[in-house]
């Protein structure tokens, strides 16, 4: 046992028993952050804030929500919205946060791509981040079906049916996931379990992992400069704070983060109070009806690009059915960005505007994903500017894959040959 002496105070008492001072140094006060990072690096802490908001409002909603197909719709739309005091507030915070968290996740992800933060030594940050994206998608989808509205029901129908595409055992897997021949009560209760228990537990664990992957390689910075954190930290600790290229996470960096959280929360509660409807699909205010499909099914905005890729293929190619190609493309779109460190063959860690080819590629990818998102929302049988929506969907889907699988490896290989930028 360690030598325990009479303590001088609460902190000292704790320090002798669990080394709190050392822990604070390792985690915050001597965890070094580069100085040259901009507001885009604050998205992580905003995501953490949103996740906490979702967790707390989720607990409050769970007290009145009933996971039963006969009660679920009314427990949300009547009990929580009309009877429970401030129930509407928790619901709208929960719904708006669930939607906005994806906006911030996309900004966070594209910041990492823009500045090359997935490369050389930071691969695990990227991989754990993409894992979080998949988990958040599953969490969002399982939560979306809980109010048992029309769109919830049919979203559950379509998504569970996707597993029917697995060779040989597909139909059995769909039945197994649903626990019934159709989406029904057993499906609702198990998705409830996933949404409120299993997935949040896994999410918290992976978020912790994501934070930890940052600890050793440290965060990237605006210029991609390779900073020797030991030397810079020493400067800082010796008092040469002006010349040190780093500041401690606390109090230096978090103070700035709190300012961004402040700005963000003003925007967030403006949405919650005045524009909460954008996160609410009107069709979902009609109870789920297994015998009637809404005229036009579409997912929430943040899944539209993947959804468009799913339906981008509507004709058979070389004997492969459109159905299978669509499913494979969709499944791949879900995990495509995982492999960024493999597609990018160059070692250059620099912002995109200092890597000409990559810069063009980056914005083409963003534009293509915005087009996919827009057309994911439009009816598949419509026509835009004289071109059928199906064909626009097809070409933007192909573009997505070519950009990732062909163009990126080529331009980064050329970049490597040129020996840099």
């Amino acid at each position, binding site marked *: 046992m360690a030598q325990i002496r009479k303590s001088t105070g609460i902190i000292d008492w704790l320090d002798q028993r669990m080394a709190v001072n050392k822990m604070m140094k390792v985690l915050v006060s001597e965890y070094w952050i580069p100085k040259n990072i901009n507001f885009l690096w604050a998205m992580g802490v905003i995501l953490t804030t949103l996740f906490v908001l979702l967790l707390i409002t989720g607990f409050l909603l769970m007290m009145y929500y009933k996971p039963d197909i006969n009660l679920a719709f009314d427990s949300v739309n009547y009990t929580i919205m009309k009877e429970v005091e401030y129930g509407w507030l928790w619901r709208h915070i929960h719904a708006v946060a669930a939607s906005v968290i994806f906006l911030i996740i996309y900004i966070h992800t594209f910041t990492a791509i823009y500045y090359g933060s997935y490369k050389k030594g930071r691969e695990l940050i990227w991989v754990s981040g993409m894992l979080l994206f998949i988990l958040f998608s599953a969490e969002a989808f399982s939560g979306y079906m809980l109010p048992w509205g029309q769109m919830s029901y049919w979203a559950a129908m379509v998504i569970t049916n996707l597993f029917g595409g697995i060779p040989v055992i597909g139909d059995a897997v769909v*039945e*197994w996931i649903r*626990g019934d021949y159709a989406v029904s009560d057993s499906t609702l209760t198990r998705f409830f379990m996933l949404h409120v228990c299993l997935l949040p537990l896994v999410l918290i664990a992976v978020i912790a992992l994501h934070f930890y992957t940052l600890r050793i390689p440290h965060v990237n910075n605006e210029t991609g400069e390779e900073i020797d954190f030991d030397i810079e930290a020493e400067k800082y600790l010796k008092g040469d704070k002006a010349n040190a290229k780093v500041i401690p996470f606390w109090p230096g960096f978090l103070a700035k983060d709190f300012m961004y959280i402040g700005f963000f929360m003003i925007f967030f509660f403006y949405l919650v109070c005045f524009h909460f409807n954008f996160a609410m699909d009107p069709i979902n205010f009609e109870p789920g009806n297994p*015998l*009637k499909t809404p005229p*036009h099914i579409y997912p929430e905005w943040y899944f539209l690009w993947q959804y468009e890729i799913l339906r981008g293929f509507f004709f058979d190619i070389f004997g492969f059915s459109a*159905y299978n190609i669509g499913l494979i493309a969709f499944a791949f779109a879900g995990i495509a960005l995982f492999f960024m460190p493999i597609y990018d063959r160059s070692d250059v860690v620099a912002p995109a505007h200092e890597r000409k080819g990559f810069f063009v590629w980056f914005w083409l990818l963003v534009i293509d994903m915005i087009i996919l998102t827009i057309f994911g929302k439009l*009816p598949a049988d419509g026509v835009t500017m004289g071109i059928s929506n199906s064909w626009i969907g097809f070409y933007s889907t192909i573009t997505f894959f070519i950009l990732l699988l062909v163009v990126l490896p080529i331009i980064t290989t050329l970049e490597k040959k040129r020996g840099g930028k």
Partner: protein
Amino acid sequence: MSVKQERRNFIGLAFGAVAAVGGAFSLVAVKKTWDPLPSVKAAGFTTVDLSPMKDGEMRQIEWRKKPIFILKKDANMAPNDKRDVVVGDSRYIVAIALCTHLGCIPEWRASKQVFICACHAGEFNVDGINTFGPPPRPLDIPPFKIDGTKLVLGETGPEYEKLVAQA
């Protein structure tokens, strides 16, 4: 020393074996927990009387929580021995009303004589055969038996066996 090491290895191996067996059994149990319950599996049969249906009429009924299309063909619709359910002098199309792509319910457009699934623009003709879009196969035919003018869904009769054998 070496003897002790061997003992440790053995204990490690033995523990691994016990854990693997236990893990495999619990996976089976977890899998079965998510399977449909017996009460769900025993979900009953649905009987429909076809005699009141008019020529060209489309009906949607429910069987095992799934919607079913029953369409009585009129004189304009070409007979198709591979898909038609013949009851007396009349021909019917009986199909599970779920698009074979991702399970939405297609809409019967009587004017164009097609089933259209709005979700991914899949199209099926009057016989329920996929003619456009991503659906990989014609609409599925539910197991049925013909009992006079009545159609019993959930049981397989000789007429069903015949249709499935041709498909």
